[in-house]
Protein backbone atom coordinates (compact mmCIF):
# COMPACT_ATOMS: atom_id res chain seq x y z
CA UNK A 1 0.00 0.00 0.00
CA UNK A 2 1.56 3.26 -1.03
CA UNK A 3 1.94 5.99 1.51
CA UNK A 4 -0.21 8.01 -0.80
CA UNK A 5 -3.50 8.37 1.00
CA UNK A 6 -5.11 10.25 -1.83
CA UNK A 7 -4.98 7.47 -4.38
CA UNK A 8 -7.40 4.57 -4.29
CA UNK A 9 -6.18 1.24 -5.64
CA UNK A 10 -6.01 0.93 -9.39
CA UNK A 11 -8.42 -1.38 -11.12
CA UNK A 12 -12.14 -2.02 -11.00
CA UNK A 13 -14.42 0.22 -9.08
CA UNK A 14 -16.57 -2.48 -7.51
CA UNK A 15 -16.31 -2.67 -3.75
CA UNK A 16 -16.32 -5.70 -1.55
CA UNK A 17 -19.65 -6.98 -0.30
CA UNK A 18 -20.66 -4.12 1.88
CA UNK A 19 -21.51 -5.31 5.34
CA UNK A 20 -22.41 -1.82 6.41
CA UNK A 21 -25.58 -1.55 4.37
CA UNK A 22 -28.08 0.63 6.22
CA UNK A 23 -30.23 -1.10 8.79
CA UNK A 24 -33.46 -0.32 7.02
CA UNK A 25 -32.56 -2.31 3.94
CA UNK A 26 -31.47 -5.24 6.09
CA UNK A 27 -34.71 -5.27 7.95
CA UNK A 28 -36.70 -4.98 4.78
CA UNK A 29 -34.94 -7.87 3.10
CA UNK A 30 -35.47 -9.95 6.22
CA UNK A 31 -39.21 -9.32 6.13
CA UNK A 32 -39.23 -10.12 2.43
CA UNK A 33 -37.48 -13.41 3.05
CA UNK A 34 -39.98 -14.57 5.63
CA UNK A 35 -42.87 -13.37 3.51
CA UNK A 36 -41.54 -15.29 0.51
CA UNK A 37 -41.13 -18.45 2.57
CA UNK A 38 -44.59 -18.18 4.06
CA UNK A 39 -46.19 -17.53 0.69
CA UNK A 40 -44.26 -20.37 -0.87
CA UNK A 41 -45.41 -22.71 1.85
CA UNK A 42 -49.00 -21.59 1.45
CA UNK A 43 -48.81 -22.02 -2.30
CA UNK A 44 -47.32 -25.48 -2.05
CA UNK A 45 -49.93 -26.59 0.46
CA UNK A 46 -52.79 -25.17 -1.56
CA UNK A 47 -51.83 -26.14 -5.08
CA UNK A 48 -49.32 -28.94 -4.95
CA UNK A 49 -49.70 -31.16 -1.94
CA UNK A 50 -52.82 -32.47 -0.23
CA UNK A 51 -53.32 -31.22 3.35
CA UNK A 52 -52.28 -34.46 5.00
CA UNK A 53 -48.92 -34.27 3.21
CA UNK A 54 -48.28 -30.57 3.60
CA UNK A 55 -50.76 -28.67 5.71
CA UNK A 56 -51.06 -24.93 5.23
CA UNK A 57 -49.35 -22.55 7.63
CA UNK A 58 -52.65 -21.66 9.21
CA UNK A 59 -53.48 -25.26 10.00
CA UNK A 60 -50.10 -25.74 11.60
CA UNK A 61 -50.50 -22.56 13.61
CA UNK A 62 -53.86 -23.74 14.81
CA UNK A 63 -52.38 -27.06 15.82
CA UNK A 64 -49.68 -25.23 17.74
CA UNK A 65 -52.33 -23.23 19.58
CA UNK A 66 -54.21 -26.43 20.39
CA UNK A 67 -51.08 -28.03 21.75
CA UNK A 68 -50.44 -25.10 24.03
CA UNK A 69 -54.03 -24.97 25.16
CA UNK A 70 -54.12 -28.64 26.01
CA UNK A 71 -51.11 -28.35 28.30
CA UNK A 72 -49.11 -30.89 26.29
CA UNK A 73 -46.79 -28.13 25.23
CA UNK A 74 -45.51 -27.37 28.69
CA UNK A 75 -44.98 -30.96 29.64
CA UNK A 76 -42.96 -31.97 26.62
CA UNK A 77 -41.27 -28.74 25.72
CA UNK A 78 -39.97 -28.22 29.22
CA UNK A 79 -38.70 -31.78 29.34
CA UNK A 80 -36.69 -31.18 26.20
CA UNK A 81 -35.41 -27.79 27.31
CA UNK A 82 -34.22 -29.11 30.65
CA UNK A 83 -32.30 -31.95 29.02
CA UNK A 84 -30.94 -29.55 26.43
CA UNK A 85 -29.54 -27.14 28.93
CA UNK A 86 -28.12 -29.75 31.26
CA UNK A 87 -26.40 -31.55 28.43
CA UNK A 88 -25.22 -28.35 26.80
CA UNK A 89 -23.86 -26.94 30.05
CA UNK A 90 -21.85 -30.09 30.65
CA UNK A 91 -20.69 -30.08 27.03
CA UNK A 92 -19.51 -26.50 27.36
CA UNK A 93 -17.61 -27.07 30.58
CA UNK A 94 -15.96 -30.26 29.39
CA UNK A 95 -15.36 -28.86 25.94
CA UNK A 96 -13.68 -25.77 27.31
CA UNK A 97 -11.47 -27.80 29.62
CA UNK A 98 -10.41 -30.14 26.82
CA UNK A 99 -9.94 -27.27 24.40
CA UNK A 100 -7.62 -25.51 26.80
CA UNK A 101 -5.72 -28.73 27.44
CA UNK A 102 -5.34 -29.28 23.71
CA UNK A 103 -4.20 -25.74 23.18
CA UNK A 104 -1.43 -26.00 25.70
CA UNK A 105 -0.12 -29.51 25.30
CA UNK A 106 0.77 -31.59 22.32
CA UNK A 107 -0.01 -34.73 24.31
CA UNK A 108 -3.66 -33.82 24.73
CA UNK A 109 -3.87 -32.67 21.15
CA UNK A 110 -2.86 -36.13 20.03
CA UNK A 111 -5.02 -37.80 22.64
CA UNK A 112 -8.24 -36.09 21.68
CA UNK A 113 -7.50 -35.27 18.05
CA UNK A 114 -8.92 -38.37 16.43
CA UNK A 115 -11.96 -38.42 18.65
CA UNK A 116 -12.75 -34.82 17.74
CA UNK A 117 -12.43 -35.53 14.04
CA UNK A 118 -14.65 -38.61 14.31
CA UNK A 119 -17.41 -36.95 16.25
CA UNK A 120 -17.42 -33.95 13.96
CA UNK A 121 -17.90 -36.05 10.85
CA UNK A 122 -20.09 -38.90 12.10
CA UNK A 123 -23.78 -38.27 11.53
CA UNK A 124 -25.81 -37.38 14.60
CA UNK A 125 -28.12 -40.25 13.78
CA UNK A 126 -25.49 -42.73 14.92
CA UNK A 127 -25.08 -41.06 18.29
CA UNK A 128 -28.81 -40.67 18.73
CA UNK A 129 -29.41 -44.34 18.01
CA UNK A 130 -26.68 -45.62 20.28
CA UNK A 131 -27.60 -43.36 23.17
CA UNK A 132 -31.27 -44.17 22.77
CA UNK A 133 -30.37 -47.83 22.72
CA UNK A 134 -28.04 -47.82 25.70
CA UNK A 135 -29.98 -45.47 27.95
CA UNK A 136 -33.48 -46.44 26.93
CA UNK A 137 -36.14 -44.09 28.15
CA UNK A 138 -33.92 -42.34 30.67
CA UNK A 139 -33.09 -38.66 30.19
CA UNK A 140 -29.45 -39.69 30.16
CA UNK A 141 -29.87 -40.66 26.52
CA UNK A 142 -30.32 -37.16 25.12
CA UNK A 143 -27.91 -35.68 27.63
CA UNK A 144 -25.08 -38.04 26.74
CA UNK A 145 -25.82 -37.58 23.03
CA UNK A 146 -25.52 -33.83 23.44
CA UNK A 147 -22.24 -34.21 25.26
CA UNK A 148 -20.84 -36.49 22.59
CA UNK A 149 -21.85 -34.35 19.63
CA UNK A 150 -21.79 -30.82 20.95
CA UNK A 151 -18.61 -31.01 22.99
CA UNK A 152 -16.25 -31.39 20.01
CA UNK A 153 -17.54 -28.17 18.50
CA UNK A 154 -16.89 -26.34 21.74
CA UNK A 155 -13.49 -27.98 22.05
CA UNK A 156 -12.35 -27.06 18.57
CA UNK A 157 -13.28 -23.43 18.94
CA UNK A 158 -11.80 -23.07 22.39
CA UNK A 159 -8.65 -24.71 21.09
CA UNK A 160 -8.51 -22.12 18.31
CA UNK A 161 -8.97 -19.43 20.91
CA UNK A 162 -6.15 -20.65 23.08
CA UNK A 163 -3.85 -20.79 20.07
CA UNK A 164 -4.84 -17.26 19.19
CA UNK A 165 -3.87 -15.77 22.51
CA UNK A 166 -1.70 -12.82 21.59
CA UNK A 167 1.65 -13.69 23.10
CA UNK A 168 3.10 -10.33 22.17
CA UNK A 169 0.35 -8.45 23.97
CA UNK A 170 0.83 -10.59 27.07
CA UNK A 171 4.57 -9.97 26.99
CA UNK A 172 3.97 -6.26 26.63
CA UNK A 173 1.69 -6.34 29.66
CA UNK A 174 4.31 -8.22 31.65
CA UNK A 175 6.99 -5.73 30.72
CA UNK A 176 4.77 -2.91 31.99
CA UNK A 177 4.19 -4.94 35.17
CA UNK A 178 0.46 -5.12 34.69
CA UNK A 179 -0.90 -7.33 37.50
CA UNK A 180 -2.08 -10.85 36.54
CA UNK A 181 -5.72 -10.14 37.29
CA UNK A 182 -5.72 -7.17 34.94
CA UNK A 183 -3.86 -9.20 32.33
CA UNK A 184 -6.53 -11.87 32.57
CA UNK A 185 -9.34 -9.39 32.33
CA UNK A 186 -8.04 -7.03 29.68
CA UNK A 187 -5.86 -9.24 27.52
CA UNK A 188 -6.63 -12.92 27.86
CA UNK A 189 -10.39 -12.94 28.17
CA UNK A 190 -11.08 -10.44 25.37
CA UNK A 191 -8.74 -12.41 23.14
CA UNK A 192 -10.39 -15.76 23.82
CA UNK A 193 -13.96 -14.51 24.21
CA UNK A 194 -14.89 -14.42 20.52
CA UNK A 195 -13.80 -18.04 20.12
CA UNK A 196 -15.70 -19.04 23.22
CA UNK A 197 -18.67 -17.33 21.72
CA UNK A 198 -18.40 -19.14 18.41
CA UNK A 199 -18.01 -22.34 20.40
CA UNK A 200 -21.27 -21.73 22.21
CA UNK A 201 -23.07 -20.85 19.01
CA UNK A 202 -22.03 -23.91 17.07
CA UNK A 203 -22.40 -26.15 20.08
CA UNK A 204 -25.92 -24.95 20.74
CA UNK A 205 -26.94 -25.35 17.12
CA UNK A 206 -26.01 -29.02 17.30
CA UNK A 207 -27.32 -29.59 20.80
CA UNK A 208 -30.99 -28.85 20.27
CA UNK A 209 -31.14 -30.94 17.14
CA UNK A 210 -29.55 -33.97 18.70
CA UNK A 211 -31.86 -33.67 21.72
CA UNK A 212 -34.90 -33.95 19.51
CA UNK A 213 -33.37 -36.77 17.51
CA UNK A 214 -32.44 -38.85 20.53
CA UNK A 215 -35.84 -38.30 22.06
CA UNK A 216 -37.40 -39.45 18.85
CA UNK A 217 -35.66 -42.80 19.07
CA UNK A 218 -35.77 -43.45 22.75
CA UNK A 219 -37.85 -41.37 25.06
CA UNK A 220 -41.28 -41.28 26.64
CA UNK A 221 -41.53 -37.51 26.73
CA UNK A 222 -40.17 -34.45 25.03
CA UNK A 223 -40.50 -32.73 21.68
CA UNK A 224 -38.71 -35.54 19.86
CA UNK A 225 -41.03 -38.10 21.35
CA UNK A 226 -44.05 -36.05 20.30
CA UNK A 227 -42.72 -35.71 16.77
CA UNK A 228 -42.43 -39.48 16.59
CA UNK A 229 -45.91 -39.95 17.98
CA UNK A 230 -47.39 -37.59 15.41
CA UNK A 231 -45.35 -39.18 12.63
CA UNK A 232 -46.60 -42.64 13.52
CA UNK A 233 -50.21 -41.48 13.13
CA UNK A 234 -49.29 -39.67 9.91
CA UNK A 235 -50.20 -36.29 11.32
CA UNK A 236 -48.00 -33.87 9.37
CA UNK A 237 -49.80 -31.10 11.16
CA UNK A 238 -48.54 -32.42 14.47
CA UNK A 239 -45.03 -33.08 13.22
CA UNK A 240 -44.67 -29.59 11.82
CA UNK A 241 -46.25 -27.98 14.86
CA UNK A 242 -43.80 -29.53 17.29
CA UNK A 243 -40.90 -28.96 14.93
CA UNK A 244 -41.78 -25.31 14.66
CA UNK A 245 -41.86 -24.93 18.44
CA UNK A 246 -38.31 -26.11 18.50
CA UNK A 247 -37.12 -24.16 15.46
CA UNK A 248 -38.69 -20.92 16.66
CA UNK A 249 -37.16 -21.45 20.07
CA UNK A 250 -33.76 -21.97 18.50
CA UNK A 251 -34.11 -18.89 16.32
CA UNK A 252 -35.12 -16.79 19.30
CA UNK A 253 -32.12 -17.92 21.30
CA UNK A 254 -29.87 -17.40 18.30
CA UNK A 255 -31.13 -14.04 17.28
CA UNK A 256 -32.13 -12.35 20.46
CA UNK A 257 -29.82 -13.79 23.04
CA UNK A 258 -26.65 -14.71 21.26
CA UNK A 259 -26.59 -12.05 18.60
CA UNK A 260 -27.41 -9.37 21.11
CA UNK A 261 -24.49 -10.41 23.27
CA UNK A 262 -22.32 -10.45 20.21
CA UNK A 263 -23.32 -6.98 19.19
CA UNK A 264 -22.73 -5.46 22.60
CA UNK A 265 -19.53 -7.17 23.58
CA UNK A 266 -17.75 -7.50 20.31
CA UNK A 267 -18.17 -4.08 18.81
CA UNK A 268 -14.43 -3.71 18.57
CA UNK A 269 -14.15 -6.55 16.16
CA UNK A 270 -14.47 -5.04 12.73
CA UNK A 271 -14.51 -8.41 11.00
CA UNK A 272 -17.84 -9.97 10.14
CA UNK A 273 -19.16 -12.81 12.25
CA UNK A 274 -20.03 -15.61 9.82
Amino acid at each position, binding site marked *: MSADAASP*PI*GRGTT*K*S*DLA*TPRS*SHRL*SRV*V*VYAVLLLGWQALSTFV*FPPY*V*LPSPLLVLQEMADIVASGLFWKHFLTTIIRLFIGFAIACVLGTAIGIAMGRS*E*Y*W*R*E*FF*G*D*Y*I*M*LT*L*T*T*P*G*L*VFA*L*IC*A*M*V*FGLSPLGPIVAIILTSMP*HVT*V*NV*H*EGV*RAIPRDLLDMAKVYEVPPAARLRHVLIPAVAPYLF*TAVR*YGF*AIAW*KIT*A*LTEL*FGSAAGVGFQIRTE*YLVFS*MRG*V*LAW*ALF*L*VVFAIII*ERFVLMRIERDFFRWRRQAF*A
Partner: protein
Amino acid sequence: MYSTLRAPRAPAGSSGLVRLLTSPRAARLTAPLLILVAWQLVAPLIGSRLLPMPIEVVEEVGVLALEGTIWSAFGTSLMRLAVGLGLALLVGAPLGLLLGVSSRAEAFAHDFIVIGLTFPYLIWGILVSMWFGFGDVGPILVVFIAAVPYVMVNTAEGVRDVSRDLLDMARSYNVSRPHVLRHLVIPSLSPFFFAALRYGLANGWKGLVLAEVFAATSGAGWEIAGMRDIGNAAGVVVYALYFATFSILVERLVFGRLSAWVFRWRPRQPGAARATAS
Protein backbone atom coordinates in the same frame (compact mmCIF):
# COMPACT_ATOMS: atom_id res chain seq x y z
CA MET B 1 25.29 -27.95 30.45
CA TYR B 2 23.10 -29.06 27.55
CA SER B 3 21.01 -31.47 29.53
CA THR B 4 19.63 -28.71 31.71
CA LEU B 5 18.28 -26.88 28.66
CA ARG B 6 16.10 -29.76 27.56
CA ALA B 7 12.69 -29.96 29.19
CA PRO B 8 12.25 -33.45 30.65
CA ARG B 9 9.27 -35.42 29.46
CA ALA B 10 9.12 -37.94 32.27
CA PRO B 11 10.44 -37.81 35.86
CA ALA B 12 14.15 -38.26 36.10
CA GLY B 13 15.20 -41.87 36.46
CA SER B 14 12.04 -43.30 34.89
CA SER B 15 12.39 -46.06 32.38
CA GLY B 16 12.26 -45.62 28.66
CA LEU B 17 8.93 -47.42 28.60
CA VAL B 18 7.22 -44.85 30.78
CA ARG B 19 8.62 -42.11 28.64
CA LEU B 20 7.32 -43.81 25.54
CA LEU B 21 3.88 -44.26 27.01
CA THR B 22 3.54 -40.63 28.02
CA SER B 23 4.83 -39.27 24.75
CA PRO B 24 2.41 -37.54 22.37
CA ARG B 25 2.84 -40.28 19.81
CA ALA B 26 1.50 -42.83 22.23
CA ALA B 27 -1.39 -40.54 23.13
CA ARG B 28 -3.10 -41.36 19.90
CA LEU B 29 -3.20 -45.02 20.80
CA THR B 30 -3.87 -44.54 24.50
CA ALA B 31 -7.23 -42.91 23.86
CA PRO B 32 -8.89 -45.72 21.91
CA LEU B 33 -7.29 -48.24 24.26
CA LEU B 34 -8.86 -46.54 27.25
CA ILE B 35 -12.23 -46.50 25.51
CA LEU B 36 -11.95 -50.20 24.81
CA VAL B 37 -11.08 -50.96 28.41
CA ALA B 38 -13.91 -48.81 29.74
CA TRP B 39 -16.31 -50.40 27.29
CA GLN B 40 -15.31 -53.89 28.38
CA LEU B 41 -15.84 -52.95 32.02
CA VAL B 42 -19.15 -51.14 31.60
CA ALA B 43 -20.91 -53.39 29.10
CA PRO B 44 -21.62 -56.30 31.46
CA LEU B 45 -23.21 -53.86 33.90
CA ILE B 46 -25.69 -52.54 31.38
CA GLY B 47 -26.57 -55.78 29.70
CA SER B 48 -25.71 -56.90 26.23
CA ARG B 49 -29.11 -56.23 24.77
CA LEU B 50 -28.50 -52.57 25.34
CA LEU B 51 -24.76 -52.36 25.05
CA PRO B 52 -22.95 -55.25 23.39
CA MET B 53 -19.61 -56.48 24.63
CA PRO B 54 -16.64 -55.75 22.41
CA ILE B 55 -16.27 -59.40 21.52
CA GLU B 56 -19.89 -59.57 20.37
CA VAL B 57 -19.26 -56.61 18.11
CA VAL B 58 -16.24 -58.28 16.56
CA GLU B 59 -18.36 -61.34 15.87
CA GLU B 60 -21.06 -59.24 14.31
CA VAL B 61 -18.56 -57.52 12.06
CA GLY B 62 -17.81 -60.87 10.53
CA VAL B 63 -21.47 -61.81 10.26
CA LEU B 64 -22.50 -58.65 8.54
CA ALA B 65 -19.47 -58.53 6.28
CA LEU B 66 -20.19 -61.99 5.02
CA GLU B 67 -23.89 -61.39 4.65
CA GLY B 68 -23.16 -58.50 2.34
CA THR B 69 -26.02 -56.08 2.98
CA ILE B 70 -23.75 -53.66 4.72
CA TRP B 71 -21.66 -53.16 1.61
CA SER B 72 -24.57 -52.52 -0.71
CA ALA B 73 -26.15 -50.28 1.90
CA PHE B 74 -23.13 -48.01 2.04
CA GLY B 75 -22.85 -48.21 -1.72
CA THR B 76 -26.40 -46.98 -2.16
CA SER B 77 -25.84 -44.18 0.32
CA LEU B 78 -22.65 -43.10 -1.40
CA MET B 79 -24.39 -43.02 -4.74
CA ARG B 80 -27.11 -40.79 -3.36
CA LEU B 81 -24.51 -38.60 -1.70
CA ALA B 82 -22.61 -38.20 -4.95
CA VAL B 83 -25.70 -37.21 -6.91
CA GLY B 84 -26.96 -34.79 -4.28
CA LEU B 85 -23.55 -33.24 -3.78
CA GLY B 86 -23.03 -32.90 -7.51
CA LEU B 87 -26.31 -31.05 -7.81
CA ALA B 88 -25.43 -28.88 -4.83
CA LEU B 89 -22.14 -27.89 -6.46
CA LEU B 90 -23.77 -27.26 -9.82
CA VAL B 91 -26.42 -25.00 -8.35
CA GLY B 92 -24.59 -23.65 -5.33
CA ALA B 93 -21.33 -22.58 -6.95
CA PRO B 94 -22.83 -20.14 -9.49
CA LEU B 95 -25.20 -18.81 -6.83
CA GLY B 96 -22.30 -18.37 -4.45
CA LEU B 97 -20.45 -16.51 -7.18
CA LEU B 98 -23.39 -14.19 -7.50
CA LEU B 99 -23.49 -13.60 -3.76
CA GLY B 100 -19.81 -12.83 -3.77
CA VAL B 101 -20.03 -10.07 -6.32
CA SER B 102 -23.37 -8.52 -5.49
CA SER B 103 -23.93 -7.16 -1.99
CA ARG B 104 -27.62 -6.82 -2.66
CA ALA B 105 -27.93 -10.48 -3.56
CA GLU B 106 -26.02 -11.34 -0.43
CA ALA B 107 -28.26 -9.28 1.81
CA PHE B 108 -31.28 -10.95 0.26
CA ALA B 109 -29.97 -14.48 0.48
CA HIS B 110 -28.49 -14.14 3.93
CA ASP B 111 -31.57 -15.13 5.88
CA PHE B 112 -32.46 -17.95 3.53
CA ILE B 113 -29.03 -19.37 4.13
CA VAL B 114 -29.32 -18.99 7.89
CA ILE B 115 -32.62 -20.85 7.79
CA GLY B 116 -31.11 -23.49 5.56
CA LEU B 117 -28.30 -23.96 8.03
CA THR B 118 -30.59 -24.03 11.06
CA PHE B 119 -33.50 -26.15 9.91
CA PRO B 120 -33.11 -29.64 11.34
CA TYR B 121 -32.41 -32.44 8.87
CA LEU B 122 -34.84 -34.57 10.85
CA ILE B 123 -37.75 -32.47 9.66
CA TRP B 124 -36.50 -32.44 6.10
CA GLY B 125 -36.26 -36.20 6.28
CA ILE B 126 -39.84 -36.54 7.44
CA LEU B 127 -41.12 -33.98 4.95
CA VAL B 128 -39.52 -35.59 1.94
CA SER B 129 -40.78 -38.98 3.05
CA MET B 130 -44.27 -37.54 2.89
CA TRP B 131 -43.63 -35.91 -0.46
CA PHE B 132 -41.69 -38.57 -2.28
CA GLY B 133 -42.37 -41.77 -0.40
CA PHE B 134 -39.54 -44.25 -0.13
CA GLY B 135 -36.76 -44.21 -2.68
CA ASP B 136 -33.78 -42.28 -3.89
CA VAL B 137 -35.36 -38.90 -4.61
CA GLY B 138 -36.06 -37.97 -1.00
CA PRO B 139 -32.58 -38.68 0.33
CA ILE B 140 -30.91 -37.03 -2.66
CA LEU B 141 -33.02 -33.94 -2.15
CA VAL B 142 -32.03 -33.77 1.49
CA VAL B 143 -28.36 -34.04 0.56
CA PHE B 144 -28.89 -31.13 -1.77
CA ILE B 145 -30.66 -29.05 0.85
CA ALA B 146 -28.02 -29.79 3.46
CA ALA B 147 -25.03 -29.11 1.22
CA VAL B 148 -26.13 -26.12 -0.83
CA PRO B 149 -25.85 -23.45 1.91
CA TYR B 150 -22.27 -24.49 2.64
CA VAL B 151 -21.35 -24.48 -1.04
CA MET B 152 -22.87 -21.05 -1.50
CA VAL B 153 -21.30 -19.48 1.55
CA ASN B 154 -17.82 -20.78 0.83
CA THR B 155 -17.91 -19.89 -2.86
CA ALA B 156 -19.08 -16.38 -2.03
CA GLU B 157 -16.30 -16.05 0.51
CA GLY B 158 -13.80 -17.14 -2.13
CA VAL B 159 -15.01 -14.65 -4.67
CA ARG B 160 -14.77 -11.82 -2.17
CA ASP B 161 -11.29 -12.91 -1.25
CA VAL B 162 -9.68 -12.70 -4.68
CA SER B 163 -6.76 -10.38 -4.20
CA ARG B 164 -7.40 -6.88 -5.48
CA ASP B 165 -3.64 -6.34 -5.62
CA LEU B 166 -3.06 -9.28 -7.89
CA LEU B 167 -5.93 -8.30 -10.17
CA ASP B 168 -4.47 -4.82 -10.45
CA MET B 169 -1.09 -6.26 -11.24
CA ALA B 170 -2.53 -8.42 -14.01
CA ARG B 171 -4.42 -5.46 -15.34
CA SER B 172 -1.38 -3.23 -15.39
CA TYR B 173 0.42 -5.87 -17.45
CA ASN B 174 -2.58 -6.22 -19.76
CA VAL B 175 -2.89 -9.92 -19.14
CA SER B 176 -5.69 -11.41 -21.23
CA ARG B 177 -9.03 -12.21 -19.57
CA PRO B 178 -8.85 -15.98 -20.08
CA HIS B 179 -5.39 -16.01 -18.56
CA VAL B 180 -6.50 -13.98 -15.58
CA LEU B 181 -9.40 -16.35 -15.08
CA ARG B 182 -7.34 -19.47 -15.44
CA HIS B 183 -4.18 -18.53 -13.57
CA LEU B 184 -5.43 -15.96 -11.09
CA VAL B 185 -9.10 -16.24 -10.28
CA ILE B 186 -9.54 -19.99 -10.32
CA PRO B 187 -6.45 -20.87 -8.26
CA SER B 188 -7.43 -18.14 -5.84
CA LEU B 189 -10.85 -19.72 -5.51
CA SER B 190 -9.62 -23.25 -5.09
CA PRO B 191 -9.15 -23.31 -1.30
CA PHE B 192 -12.67 -22.00 -0.89
CA PHE B 193 -14.03 -24.44 -3.38
CA PHE B 194 -12.26 -27.10 -1.41
CA ALA B 195 -13.96 -25.93 1.77
CA ALA B 196 -17.28 -25.89 -0.06
CA LEU B 197 -16.72 -29.48 -1.09
CA ARG B 198 -15.61 -30.53 2.35
CA TYR B 199 -18.44 -28.99 4.34
CA GLY B 200 -20.97 -29.77 1.66
CA LEU B 201 -19.95 -33.39 1.83
CA ALA B 202 -19.89 -33.60 5.62
CA ASN B 203 -23.30 -32.07 6.02
CA GLY B 204 -24.79 -33.75 2.99
CA TRP B 205 -23.75 -37.07 4.48
CA LYS B 206 -25.37 -36.23 7.80
CA GLY B 207 -28.60 -35.18 6.18
CA LEU B 208 -28.56 -38.22 3.93
CA VAL B 209 -28.40 -40.92 6.57
CA LEU B 210 -31.12 -39.26 8.57
CA ALA B 211 -33.35 -38.92 5.53
CA GLU B 212 -32.81 -42.58 4.72
CA VAL B 213 -34.40 -43.54 8.03
CA PHE B 214 -37.68 -42.00 6.95
CA ALA B 215 -37.66 -41.73 3.18
CA ALA B 216 -35.98 -44.89 1.95
CA THR B 217 -35.91 -48.66 2.28
CA SER B 218 -32.21 -49.05 1.70
CA GLY B 219 -28.97 -47.32 2.53
CA ALA B 220 -26.73 -47.03 5.57
CA GLY B 221 -29.10 -44.81 7.54
CA TRP B 222 -32.06 -47.09 6.99
CA GLU B 223 -30.03 -50.17 7.92
CA ILE B 224 -28.64 -48.82 11.15
CA ALA B 225 -32.07 -47.68 12.28
CA GLY B 226 -33.41 -51.06 11.25
CA MET B 227 -30.77 -52.81 13.34
CA ARG B 228 -31.98 -50.92 16.34
CA ASP B 229 -35.62 -51.69 15.61
CA ILE B 230 -35.01 -55.41 15.62
CA GLY B 231 -32.94 -55.10 18.79
CA ASN B 232 -29.62 -56.05 17.24
CA ALA B 233 -27.43 -53.91 19.48
CA ALA B 234 -24.22 -55.36 18.14
CA GLY B 235 -25.38 -54.59 14.64
CA VAL B 236 -25.93 -50.97 15.54
CA VAL B 237 -22.42 -50.73 16.91
CA VAL B 238 -20.96 -52.43 13.84
CA TYR B 239 -22.69 -49.96 11.58
CA ALA B 240 -21.45 -47.14 13.79
CA LEU B 241 -17.91 -48.46 13.37
CA TYR B 242 -18.35 -48.54 9.62
CA PHE B 243 -19.52 -44.95 9.75
CA ALA B 244 -16.48 -44.05 11.76
CA THR B 245 -14.19 -45.84 9.33
CA PHE B 246 -15.83 -44.03 6.46
CA SER B 247 -15.16 -40.72 8.18
CA ILE B 248 -11.52 -41.56 8.76
CA LEU B 249 -11.02 -42.70 5.18
CA VAL B 250 -12.61 -39.62 3.73
CA GLU B 251 -10.82 -37.23 6.06
CA ARG B 252 -7.39 -38.78 5.79
CA LEU B 253 -7.20 -40.09 2.28
CA VAL B 254 -9.43 -37.79 0.36
CA PHE B 255 -9.12 -34.50 2.12
CA GLY B 256 -5.71 -35.07 3.62
CA ARG B 257 -4.01 -36.05 0.39
CA LEU B 258 -6.06 -33.78 -1.81
CA SER B 259 -5.49 -30.87 0.49
CA ALA B 260 -1.75 -31.47 0.53
CA TRP B 261 -1.68 -31.46 -3.26
CA VAL B 262 -3.97 -28.48 -3.78
CA PHE B 263 -2.01 -26.38 -1.31
CA ARG B 264 1.48 -27.57 -2.10
CA TRP B 265 2.54 -24.01 -2.90
CA ARG B 266 1.80 -22.77 0.61
CA PRO B 267 4.79 -21.95 2.80
CA ARG B 268 5.00 -24.13 5.89
CA GLN B 269 3.32 -22.58 8.90
CA PRO B 270 4.69 -23.51 12.28
CA GLY B 271 2.25 -25.38 14.50
CA ALA B 272 -0.48 -25.82 11.89
CA ALA B 273 -3.70 -27.19 13.37
CA ARG B 274 -5.60 -30.32 12.43
CA ALA B 275 -9.23 -30.93 11.55
CA THR B 276 -11.29 -27.85 12.12
CA ALA B 277 -14.86 -27.13 13.14
CA SER B 278 -17.63 -27.25 10.60
